[in-house]
């Protein structure tokens, strides 16, 4: 074990960790929008929209992310759509994560007791106010722990976008391993960065839960 290999590559690893974090952040945020749309579609009561939402969730939860990424990057290119690597990476992460986030949101909305919106309806609330003021604030609070969990999973899954050639943490660790002939040190270094980022995320999650938990006990 030569720890100095890690020290020498610290600059590269830090930069690559930044790329990993940025990719995952973009994936989780865009995935949230996609997931929210899919969740609304499933709960809309319109049959075709519900079917579309359900199909999206089944497909993107059911097919491995690696296969999705290869499909977006290589197969679409074959059809003449040249998708830049970055777009393929972020798009792939967002679509895969959106499927999980749709289910997280749907579960959270179902966990809000029926009486909550009933009380608002009985008082004469418009549907938009029931959603904005009563249902969503409670559902989002319920979703914080699973969403943080999803973020951590996505951050680790983002190592797969190395297959489309993006210099994120796993890819850079591989490069360091090849160049230095020190795979053990290179991957320990990369792994420590993943661990550090995820510990920060869990911490943020705990803070968020404590912050909202105070007001939110149902």
């Amino acid at each position: 074990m030569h720890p100095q290999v890690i020290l020498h590559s610290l600059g590269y690893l830090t930069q690559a960790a930044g790329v990993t974090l940025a990719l995952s952040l973009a994936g989780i945020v865009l995935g949230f929008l996609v997931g929210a749309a899919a969740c609304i579609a499933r709960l809309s009561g319109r049959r075709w929209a519900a079917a579309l939402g359900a199909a999206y969730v089944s497909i993107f939860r059911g097919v491995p992310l690696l296969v999705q990424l290869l499909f977006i990057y290589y197969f679409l290119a074959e059809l003449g759509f040249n998708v830049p690597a970055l777009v393929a990476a972020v798009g792939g992460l967002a679509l895969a994560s959106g499927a999980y986030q749709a289910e997280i949101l749907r579960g959270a909305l179902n966990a809000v007791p029926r009486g909550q919106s009933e009380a608002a309806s009985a008082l004469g609330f418009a549907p938009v106010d029931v959603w904005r003021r009563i249902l969503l604030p409670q559902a989002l609070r319920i979703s914080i722990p699973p969403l943080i969990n999803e973020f951590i999973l996505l951050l680790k899954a983002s190592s797969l976008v190395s297959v489309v050639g993006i210099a994120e943490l796993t890819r850079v660790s591989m490069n360091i391993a090849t160049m230095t002939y020190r795979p053990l040190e290179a991957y320990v270094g990369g792994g420590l960065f993943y661990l550090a980022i995820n510990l920060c995320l869990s911490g943020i999650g705990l803070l968020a839960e404590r912050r909202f938990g105070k007001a939110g006990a149902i």
Partner: protein
Amino acid sequence: MSTAMIEARGVGKRFGANEVLRGVDLDVGRSEVVCLIGPSGSGKSTLLRCINFLEAYDDGEVRIEGELIGYEKASDGKRRPMGARRLREMRREIGMVFQHFNLWPHMTALGNVAEPLKRVRKLAAGEAEERAMDMLKRVGLAEKAEAYPSRLSGGQQQRVAIARALAMQPRLMLFDEPTSALDPELVGEVLEVMRALATEGMTMLIVTHEMGFAAHVADRIAFIDQGRILEQGPPRQVFHESSEPRVRQFLQTYHDRNAF
């Protein structure tokens, strides 16, 4: 135009094959307090929920101050669900208190009472909170204004829920088993608020198992069984002079319980 606050005529409601209400007729006059009693599953709560159309009745009519709620006449003579906006306007005038309070857990007591004033009555925040505070004082909870529902006892939560409904200045109040989810020692404080409300002349329709309260506060008792009103009249008549065997049998358990 009738002057009755609530007029229900031949109200019927089915859940699938289960006929919950079978042609219920019920009138509630202005400032009248009517208690609905009867065994579990008899349709009392469903009837109450049809009055503000939280539950859509299938047959018959429910009129609030003469206006049909929930349906409107279509051009072909049949009826269709009434416009959502008009239904909301009607519901604003009908306060409702639920068995499980249904306070919003992410808002303080004051927030719970002020929220409908802001969203539905469109009051400015300051004015809404001022009126909300007055209402909390009225139910004796001014000092709990900043507390979240999870920090309040059941009785306090229900009083906040009553304040929330009252703040809207409704023309009538519906109570759906308001004390059934409470510890026995907390029932009194809620009934006290309701009793005061009745004295002030509020029109109230109350589903309850509190027979003592019903006997003392109600102007009229309606006994429901299997989706029908079997008997209605002044408390004395229903509680002590009923000739309906089903009513006597139901009330016997309460007389027995009060015997010791």
